[in-house]
């Protein structure tokens, strides 16, 4: 396990700088999945990327993992732009691994657990030397993912495993490459409630024992509260608020974050702000602040009272820096008022 400690000491930092991703459909409509995002993740920290479907969070995760080419901005690995050539991307895979959603579909049903976990090892030719046999590495990866004794699962097929076990096999497959950063897309949303805790505890343990950094993409604010050091909230291709988790979730500034928090089901909470409608089509992003058509502050007149309602409708907000903050005209206006 010495390589792991080395990895933690060397560490890795992944940074998105003004990243934009657009998709052009056959009909010519341009869908803007990401419209300028700054985000940084490094080894040893857990960042939660929170948003609803259509927010662009999965696209951002894939862009950071090198699976999605960007149409604007750049992704920096340890300060250097991410190489897009085959060889460079393959080398990146050893440092940044992505665990996909849907554990049931992400494992080839014809491959045994052993084959699935060994796939990465074989692809990169990592099993070299008498004390680094492929079998040893697979067993280690499965153990690190909490599946003990690992040998018992070698010959099982995915359909013979429970949902929680499948998720751990996926994580083991990623760990087998001994990465420095893990990107997990909705790691627990398809699992039963009581299994959730174990998988999340595993992510925390990986951070503590192996020094891994983790970027978790989720729609579940409770998950962010459970394990994340920092949280970023996305809406329609932009990060609207980001910062340390405790601060952000106990004292949210952005109207969208406030609304999201207010509807998380629990018995003692603030008055729920149920937003009308749904996230707009990414081919027709509203002008000005993209949240303004659904913003309760604009609808209630609070924005007008502060004199920013024209800005809300017309003025595009700057991209939030990686250090965090809140992208909202009203919040900015209130902060600039001398106390």
């Amino acid at each position, binding site marked *: 396990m010495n390589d792991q400690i080395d990895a933690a000491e060397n560490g890795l930092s992944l940074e998105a700088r003004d990243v934009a991703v657009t998709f052009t459909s056959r009909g010519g409509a341009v869908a803007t999945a990401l419209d300028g995002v700054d985000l940084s993740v490094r080894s040893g920290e857990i960042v939660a990327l929170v948003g*609803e479907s259509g927010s662009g969070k999965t696209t951002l995760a894939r862009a950071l993992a090198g699976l999605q080419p960007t149409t604007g901005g750049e992704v920096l690995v340890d300060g250097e732009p991410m190489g897009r050539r085959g060889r460079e991307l393959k080398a990146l895979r050893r440092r940044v691994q992505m665990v996909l959603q849907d554990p049931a579909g992400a494992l080839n049903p014809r491959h045994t657990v052993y084959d699935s976990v060994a796939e990465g090892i074989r692809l990169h030719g990592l099993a070299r030397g008498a004390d680094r046999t492929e079998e040893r590495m697979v067993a280690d990866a499965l153990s690190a993912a909490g599946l003990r004794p690992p040998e018992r699962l070698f010959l099982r097929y995915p359909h013979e495993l429970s949902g929680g076990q499948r998720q751990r096999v996926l994580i083991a497959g990623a760990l087998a490459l001994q990465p420095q950063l893990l990107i997990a897309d909705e790691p627990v949303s398809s699992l039963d409630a009581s299994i959730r805790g174990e998988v999340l505890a595993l992510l925390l343990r990986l951070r503590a024992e192996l020094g891994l950094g983790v970027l978790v993409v989720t729609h579940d604010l409770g998950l962010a*509260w459970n394990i994340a050091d920092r949280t970023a909230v996305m809406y329609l291709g932009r990060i609207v608020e980001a910062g340390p988790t405790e601060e952000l979730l106990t004292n949210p500034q952005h109207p969208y974050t406030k609304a999201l928090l207010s509807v998380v089901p629990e018995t003692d909470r603030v008055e729920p702000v149920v937003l009308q409608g749904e996230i707009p089509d990414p081919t027709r992003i509203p002008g000005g602040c993209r949240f303004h058509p659904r913003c309760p502050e604009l609808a209630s007149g609070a924005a007008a009272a502060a004199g920013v309602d024209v800005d809300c409708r017309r003025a595009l907000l700057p991209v939030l820096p990686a250090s965090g903050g809140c992208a909202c005209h009203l919040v900015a206006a209130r902060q600039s008022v001398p106390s």
Partner: protein
Amino acid sequence: MSDLLRIEDLSVTYATQEGPVPAVRGVTLGVDRGEVLGIAGESGCGKSTLASTILRLQPASATVDGRVLMDGEDVVTMRWGDLRTLRWAGASIVFQGALHSLNAVRRVGQQIAEPIRLHEPGVGDAEVDRRVGELLEQVGLPAARAKAYPHQLSGGQRQRVMIAMALACRPDLVIADEPTTALDVMVQAQVLDVLTTLVREAGLGMIFISHDLAVLAEVSDRIAVMYAGRVVEQGPANLVFTDPLHPYAAALGASFPRVGDPAARYAPAGLAGDPPDLRSLPAGCSFAPRCPRAVDACTAAEPVLELKRPTRAAACIRVGES
């Protein structure tokens, strides 16, 4: 009792190649008009089997013992004609995975109209269209959406179409099986709003099935927690959520933390082990292998669901100890 639905000691056993699998084991529940009963449980607890058995939709090879009384009549032994009337006009289901239950090649308006045409064949086209429009508006969608195909709607909108479909024949009871599980939290809030408004205004009875105890606490009047085919705790919704008696109910409630609770910070709570294998249940309490409070006595006999407080029942021998 004037219960709308009364399930008495219901047991459903599937016949499989590996032998009989008891999906539901001796469940007794009741729901009244204007009341929401929440059933909490995870995969394998028997909740979906329970839901389909209420309308006698369980597989033909399954054996059913016990009674399911809808307005006093036993569904299990009902005549076919009465059963057909019951299905959708007496009680309807919003199925799990509703997003995939819509026919992709038919407009949603036609699909909502289908049960109306089946149950009330005399109704004219114009009247059917009007009612479909009304139903869509009841669930918060514009009536014009009836012309859309499922793929043109978002997940939340499709779920609402499923609810509209379930209401098409003005049933007395609606069974919602994990209706918000795959939805975003904001859309979930909208759908929950729709459902609670319906219960209030139309006086429906509702059974709401979910594995998220917090959602159930918001929506239900009473909650029954199921594990391995049996009810392990039952009581008023907010009490079961905030002060659970049964260790499983406690674990389930703790799985989704309260945002802002410092105790949940870096401390995800959950259960070890896997859901029970119904083909080989352990002796005694089926939850004992995973229970943080299990003792030797737990493996002796399956605990009986009995009243531990005036309005609350739990099936655990360790409730009531200090």
